[in-house]
């Protein structure tokens, strides 16, 4: 929060009134909802994100999900802002604590002067736990039960949403219309109860004596375009459909499952089909089968499942079949931390298969980029006829952001099987051209039909054990990725083009790295950053960028390894032989805090 609050007394009923700042003065606010996963706190987050999308405000959410079946402690954090919002926020300005455990575990996340609203029906606050914050007790449970006239405590989430709406002077009308859309289809009574709970929260008398300050958010810079709000997995799913994916197969695993569930439900509407396979091996085999049949297809998984797909993926490289593979990274190795974020699958994405099996690897930087990276993956898979792995992660998969509505006229691709008759000269693997398959059903006027194989083969796809042919075909499979490297533009440097520190990131660390860079720059520090969306092949021009900085620090959520370097760092050091490339790594299962990156810079400067 840019508006400063005076140090808060510890009592809930303290009535010292400070000077109220003018309405609409807050630049941004971080609100953390802490409850259990079945309380529907994600619903509040989702609605607030949509509201932000409609109000020209930026939003980023962050959630933790228990990896247990019956639910358990869960948080949903919303960062609302009138300017650019790049991270979920290191500390929160507001905490809404539903239970004692929510309070105990999260009260320390509040910044100095932050406000803790706790459910006085369930929580006994401990003034010593975070002396710098203000406590406000609200009988969330009993007021909700009373408002709904029942005995069950469902609807607490909407009560809290009403409370937040009141507190931040959010656009009530827009929220009500969002509620009507969300609950309207579920029957009159559901909508009525939702509205009752919401209104009860909205009308709840917090009073100036309790909340001593106006928290009205400043209006965002108004945009002339429509914006949509969604999470990374959903953005990825629709990106795939826009990219022309109509077929695919998968196997359930957290946090990939929502993408496959979405594809299973959506693709039939587009005349397509997504199959739930019996295992990861069958899933990737089916996906390759769809692609062979002429329909570019998708499979996906998370860490352990990607490992299981590795043998078939190298078939994809050898047979040169197009395929899109989504890997939603989570904490590893093994079952690891299934609901936490990590970026430790880069090496397996690049090198997890046997043999020399080059493939394209991309990583989206934020929710919006999940959408466009999925489209790009489809285009590259078709163009270069090979597997493309997209590395997203748990945090990106589950967080919500608002972004400009995609222009379908510009990006929608439809690509039916290419079954036109092939002539006698047909060669699927020409040594001097791009791979083009003749899917089954294609007539071959030469009379000879192609067999697609995992054995080394010649230009016609016929098995060949010739030492020379293996060399040439290996080169062919590698050189097409080098051609792609020539097409990728060098990434832009954010900040000065030369200086002391260059931060390098990949994937979902884009936001925190950019915010850390801005903060360092604001304090007069020479820090710039560059972000990689293409990890294999790497874009050209990096060497020149690196040469202009004294320190090149790669920020990544994986282990520093035996030699002190994270996975991308190792790759860049091997590629550019530059000893000034070093790592800021961590594996605590949480997204980077701005402070952690800034501390990392200082550590390396004085190393």
């Amino acid at each position, binding site marked *: 929060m840019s508006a400063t609050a005076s140090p808060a007394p510890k009592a809930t009923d303290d009535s010292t009134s400070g000077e109220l700042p003018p309405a609409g003065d807050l630049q941004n606010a971080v609100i953390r909802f802490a409850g259990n996963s079945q309380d529907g706190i994600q619903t509040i987050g989702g609605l607030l994100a*949509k509201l932000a*999308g*409609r109000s020209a405000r930026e939003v980023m959410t962050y959630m933790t999900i228990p990896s247990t079946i019956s639910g358990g402690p869960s948080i949903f954090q919303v960062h609302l802002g009138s300017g650019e919002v790049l991270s979920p926020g290191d500390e929160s300005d507001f905490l809404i604590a539903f239970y004692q455990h929510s309070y105990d575990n999260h009260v320390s996340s509040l910044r100095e002067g932050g406000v803790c609203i706790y459910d006085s029906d369930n929580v006994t606050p401990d003034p010593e736990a975070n002396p710098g914050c203000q406590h406000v007790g609200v009988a969330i449970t009993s007021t909700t039960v009373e408002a709904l006239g029942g005995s069950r405590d469902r609807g607490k989430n909407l009560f809290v949403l009403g409370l937040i709406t009141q507190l931040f002077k959010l656009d009530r009308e827009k929220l009500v219309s969002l509620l009507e*859309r969300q609950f309207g289809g579920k029957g009159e009574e559901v909508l009525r109860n939702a509205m009752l709970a919401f209104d009860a929260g909205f009308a709840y008398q917090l009073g100036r004596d309790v909340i001593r300050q106006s928290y009205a958010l400043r209006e965002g810079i108004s945009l002339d375009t*429509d914006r*949509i*709000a*969604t999470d990374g997995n*959903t953005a990825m799913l*629709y990106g795939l*459909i826009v990219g022309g994916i109509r*077929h695919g*197969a998968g196997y359930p695993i957290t946090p990939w499952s929502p993408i496959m569930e979405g594809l299973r439900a959506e693709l*039939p*509407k*587009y005349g*397509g*089909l997504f*199959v739930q*396979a*019996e*295992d990861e*091996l*069958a*899933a990737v*085999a*089916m*996906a*390759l*089968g*769809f692609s062979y*049949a*002429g*329909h570019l*297809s998708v499979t996906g998984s998370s860490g352990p499942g990607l490992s299981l797909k590795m*043998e*078939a993926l190298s*078939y994809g490289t050898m047979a040169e079949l197009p395929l899109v593979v989504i890997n939603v990274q989570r904490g590893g190795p093994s079952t690891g931390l299934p609901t936490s974020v990590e970026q430790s699958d880069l090496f397996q994405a690049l090198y997890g298969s046997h043999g020399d099996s080059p493939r394209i690897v991309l990583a989206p930087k934020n929710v919006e980029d999940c959408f466009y990276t999925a489209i790009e993956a489809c285009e590259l898979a078709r163009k270069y006829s090979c597997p493309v792995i997209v590395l997203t992660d748990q945090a990106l998969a589950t967080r919500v952001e608002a972004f400009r*509505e*995609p222009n*379908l006229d510009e990006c*929608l691709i*439809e690509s039916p099987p290419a079954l036109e008759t092939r002539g006698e000269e047909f060669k699927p693997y020409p040594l001097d051209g791009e791979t083009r398959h*003749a*899917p*089954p*059903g*294609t*007539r*071959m006027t030469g*009379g*000879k*039909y*192609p*067999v*697609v*194989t*995992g*054995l080394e083969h010649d230009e016609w796809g016929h*098995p060949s054990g010739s030492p020379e042919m293996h060399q040439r075909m290996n080169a062919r499979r590698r050189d097409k990725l080098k051609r792609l490297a020539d097409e990728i533009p060098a990434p832009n440097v954010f900040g000065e083009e030369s200086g002391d520190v260059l931060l390098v990131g990949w994937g979902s660390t884009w936001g925190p790295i950019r915010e850390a860079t801005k903060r360092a720059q604001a304090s007069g520090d020479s820090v710039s950053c560059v972000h990689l969306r293409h990890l294999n092949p790497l874009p050209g021009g990096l060497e020149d960028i690196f040469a202009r900085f004294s320190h090149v620090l790669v920020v990544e959520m994986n282990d520093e390894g035996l030699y002190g370097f994270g996975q991308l760092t190792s790759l860049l050091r091997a590629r550019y032989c530059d000893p000034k490339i070093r790592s800021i790594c961590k594996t605590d299962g949480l997204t980077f805090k701005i402070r952690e990156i800034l501390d990392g810079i200082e550590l390396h400067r004085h190393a």
Partner: protein
Amino acid sequence: MSATAESPQKLTKKELSADHPTWCPGCGDFAVLASFFKVLEKLQIPHEKICTIAGIGCSSRFPYFVNGHGVHFIHGRALPFASAVSLSRPDLHVFAFGGDGDGYSIGGNHLDHAARKNINLTYVVMDNFVYGLTKKQTSPTSPTGFKSKTDPAGSIDQPINPMRKLVSNGASFVARSHASQVKHMMEMFERAILHPGFSVVEVLSECVIFYPGAFDSGNPRKGGEFAEIDEKKWDNSSEDETRHDTTSVEAAFRLASEPFPGKFGVYLEVDRPTKNQLEQKWIDSSREKTKNASAKDLLSKRFAMMK
């Protein structure tokens, strides 16, 4: 499709043959290939609609020897690959070929699921009771006591009973044949191909190098007996009562439990909806619900919900 009109010449063995098989002289798989050609000649499936898919093993080299669209995939995963081809391309005739190791060992799980889902394709297993390509290791169908490089003192594990596996996993057409009986194989292949759904033919196909004589007891020319299943004719005769009811899972299990070499013919032939049909039904009803909206309209509507 107009494709048939464009290829008026009759499809014969000449057009259907590709590479000369790399199998050892005397291998049972030659007869399987010859029978397959003959059935294709009889059925006159349009050339470009023939798609053969295999995994890894001696018999899995089948697609190289058939001049048609083919796939030589990885070990054990031919069926999921073939399933996707079948599900997304109803215009094709999809065939999967493989051996006992590929189908009952490394690919055993996929066989269960392709069968229970009743994917519309025909799967031929050339069962030789041994790993041949890797030169004589114990296979999932090797009988107890079989001496191999991995069981020098004789195999100790109970073998899989393929017919029981196939009946129990829900395959809607299950037949058994012997590579020494070309006419019988042809009949089984033809019925399998014409069966709508997951049809599988288990063929005892001798490996003359690593397990010679394995199937002599089912071969009259080697002093054995080729006992064919007497199928019910549904003629209300008294003889008919003892004949085999191919729609009965219980009867199929009884046949499957007979001691080796057992009976040859159709064990099971049931009519139930294929996954192909059921998925298409869902696609059709989804398209109907959205009034055949274009991709752009569907997506625009979805984006509107995200506002």
